[in-house]
């Protein structure tokens, strides 16, 4: 019997830190950490001494000071007596607004163009190819400036709309006015408004109408409840189908659940459409979309739409022909084939790059600077910085906002990717 003993451990030598792969990784990491900390310390040290030399401190207190400037487009209440923080929030809302509108429009354009580019129709597919290549290969900034120039130079002035024989006229039954000051759209007003503080119009002898947050909250809540009820009905139909094999018809029920409650709510609020009309030298009432918003929105959606079109096209091409043939061989209808076989597979290819295009669009919305759209870069990163002289704090907050936004979006994308990942063995 021999006793089992560990072989004698060689004594640790310093040279092992470099030549032994077990320890070398630790050495490298420690050295890297020291270098990184040294570099950060150097930067921080420089910053502190530079700030001291300029007589500035590092303080976010400016966010609660009165801003003192006006913002021409606001989704939440704001006036120039409110704080810089509030102004930044208005800017954030404006950024999110144009990003949201842009993402929707770009997706619609992209899906249309991507599908049409695969069309067997020669003229259509060529036209779409020209659109895609044209927008992809020219800087976005140029498109923004160009569309802004078209809007402000080539569109009629509001005064062209007046007179017996006006040089320009409103379109779609006198509802929309496209002028060089922006686009005027009709909006909804309520004769029995719940909030009633904001009087909108007394137009054409109508009773005064108002439109406030409470009304819209009620409408949204009604729509939300209807949608939940519709899902409930659909789920019940699924259960019935699973147990009996016969699917009850849900179409009429669903339509009724959707339209009846909202109809009743709108009736009791006394909904009217408030059209913009010419008063003095400008249009009043209605919703005013400024040229800056229109130019930014159109350019962002057309530019990103061209990229999305390519993504959609490659996603459709990525699903092999055999898949649809197999589905037909199983006797599936074309609509079911699309819904159950083609789309789920194409979506796996399409969604990740699509979301990164949304991310690009959101970041590109900072080009609002070219047309003077008041986004967060213009309020927090522009006027607030130049008024308070807080470059460091302002830029940090601005960068932090964009970073947080993109991290949220990309973590959503990662979640989707892990959920739809193919199981590989």
């Amino acid at each position, binding site marked *: 019997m021999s006793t089992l003993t560990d072989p004698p451990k060689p004594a640790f030598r310093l040279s092992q830190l*470099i030549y032994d792969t077990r320890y070398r990784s630790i050495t490298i*990491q420690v050295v890297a950490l020291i270098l990184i900390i040294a570099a950060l310390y150097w930067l921080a040290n420089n910053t502190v*001494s530079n*700030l001291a030399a300029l007589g500035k401190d590092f303080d976010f207190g400016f966010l609660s000071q009165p801003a003192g400037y006006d913002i021409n487009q606001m989704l939440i209440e704001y006036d120039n007596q409110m704080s810089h923080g509030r102004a930044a929030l208005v800017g954030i809302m404006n950024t999110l607004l144009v990003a949201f509108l842009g993402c929707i429009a770009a997706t619609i354009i992209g899906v249309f163009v991507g599908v*049409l580019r695969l069309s067997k129709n020669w003229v259509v597919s060529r036209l779409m190819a020209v659109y895609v290549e044209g927008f992809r290969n020219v800087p976005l*900034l140029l498109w923004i400036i160009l569309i802004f120039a078209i809007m402000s130079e080539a569109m009629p002035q509001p005064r062209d709309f007046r007179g017996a024989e006006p040089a320009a006229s409103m379109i779609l039954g006198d509802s929309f006015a496209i002028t060089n000051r922006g686009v005027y759209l009709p909006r909804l007003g309520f004769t029995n408004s719940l909030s009633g503080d904001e009087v909108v119009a007394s137009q054409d002898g109508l009773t005064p109408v108002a439109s406030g947050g409470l009304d819209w909250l009620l409408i949204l809540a009604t729509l939300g409840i209807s949608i939940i009820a519709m899902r409930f009905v659909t789920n019940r139909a699924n259960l019935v189908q699973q147990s009996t094999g016969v699917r009850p018809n849900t179409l009429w029920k669903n339509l009724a659940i959707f339209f009846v409650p909202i109809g009743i709510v709108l009736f009791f609020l006394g909904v009217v459409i408030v059209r913009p009309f010419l008063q003095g030298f400008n249009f009043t009432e209605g919703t005013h979309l400024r040229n800056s918003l229109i130019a930014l929105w159109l350019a962002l959606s057309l530019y990103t739409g061209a990229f999305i079109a390519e993504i959609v096209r490659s996603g459709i091409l990525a699903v092999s022909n055999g898949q649809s043939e197999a589905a037909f061989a199983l006797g599936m209808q074309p609509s079911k084939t699309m819904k159950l076989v083609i789309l789920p597979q194409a979506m796996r290819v399409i969604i990740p790059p699509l979301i990164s295009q949304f991310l690009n669009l959101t970041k590109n919305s900072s080009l609002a*600077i070219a047309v003077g759209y008041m986004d967060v*870069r213009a309020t927090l990163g522009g006027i607030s910085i130049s008024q308070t002289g807080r470059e460091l704090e302002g830029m940090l907050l601005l960068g932090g906002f964009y970073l947080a936004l*993109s991290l949220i979006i990309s973590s959503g994308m990662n979640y989707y990717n892990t959920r739809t990942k193919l199981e590989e063995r």
Partner: protein
Amino acid sequence: MSEIHAHTVSHVRDTMLPQQAPPITETGVVKWIRENLFSSWLNAILTIISIYVIYRLLAGIVPWFFHSVWSAESLSECRDVLAAKGLGAHDGACFSVLTARWHQMVFGYYPSDLYWRPLLALAVFFVGIAPILFANLPRKMLLITMSVPFICFWLLWGGSIWFPLTTALGFVLGYVAMNFVGKSISPLAGVIAAIVVPLLYWIFVAGALSNGLQDVIPLDIETVQSRKFGGFMLSVIIGLSAIILSLPLGILLALARQSDLFIIKTSAVIFIEVIRGVPLIVWLFTAQLLLNYFLPPGSNFDLTLRVIIMVTLFASAYIAEVVRGGLAALPKGQYEGGDSLGLDYWQSMQLIILPQALKISIPGIVNTFIGLFKDTTLVVFIGLFDPLGIAGAIRATTEWNGIYWELFAFIGLMFFIACFSMGRYSLYLENKLQRENR
């Protein structure tokens, strides 16, 4: 049926009929139009809409283009010429702004008697890039490639030739130190020497040496301030230097992000995500407003240079993601193969992994470059004169006040030509790689 003979049936044809032409709807243009444009109702409607759209676009652009005026000194003169032809102010293009100001669009405010210098720099650049693009050129030409940055710098900015020469000498010193120390002491000491020796040389010796040599043998050409750079020249300078500088940085970042070492990986991830999460325009403003805070007090350097540094960092994060895709696309067996041959990390990266991974990522790198080149237009917001900035400056003069479309069309066309051809090149590479990997 065999009883049926010729005489029992009423008529038997005994000659062949000549071949008939196929029906007109089944041949040529008509068939093509029927199949491609009007195969269904939906298709027919789409075709008609498309043709209408094309007609509207062409009807707007073609007469405008054909009535263009190419020789006029100012916008009002151009409008007079149009009016003399009986046309309105907006019925014809005033491309005379291009004939009058093309040099500004291309070179910015670079002194006009020195235009040969950027052109020569471009030619030198193409000579330098040739051995990288075409593998069958002699490898000795890579030496020229390495000297290109210094030559181009000297040609563009001018000044004493000794400054770029002494700077380049630092790299030579580093190389010599690495070989000498690496062979005589140990490879690790060689690497350290290759970093330390040039740094010491640049900090303590290079400036004095450059000035001293300039005093002894003055060899200089006229200095051009970088605020005189502009137009497409500026876009090309920023784009090319950023992409060339960001390539090595991006590869290192990608390797760091794929590394097993926790601290290195984490710092690479943070760097890449922070850079990519924030728009370029915010980085440019950072370069303009904040860079002076981060540098030692009193240091102040050129805005163009700051922009190049910022754009380089920005591009390197994007390149890192592209290269990471290439690294991830390689089968695991390649990594294991390198390990089983006993190669260490850098050897296996250099000899096995990177050649394959970079080859896969070339199309992505080209696409990154296209995006970067388009993004160089953003420098207009921090006061540099890129093509859009020059267009604004031209519009601000009394002669050309109010001119929009002609300048936009020209800038758009130039960018389109550059980006479209690069995009085609990347497509060609992609197809070639697919064929090779099959």
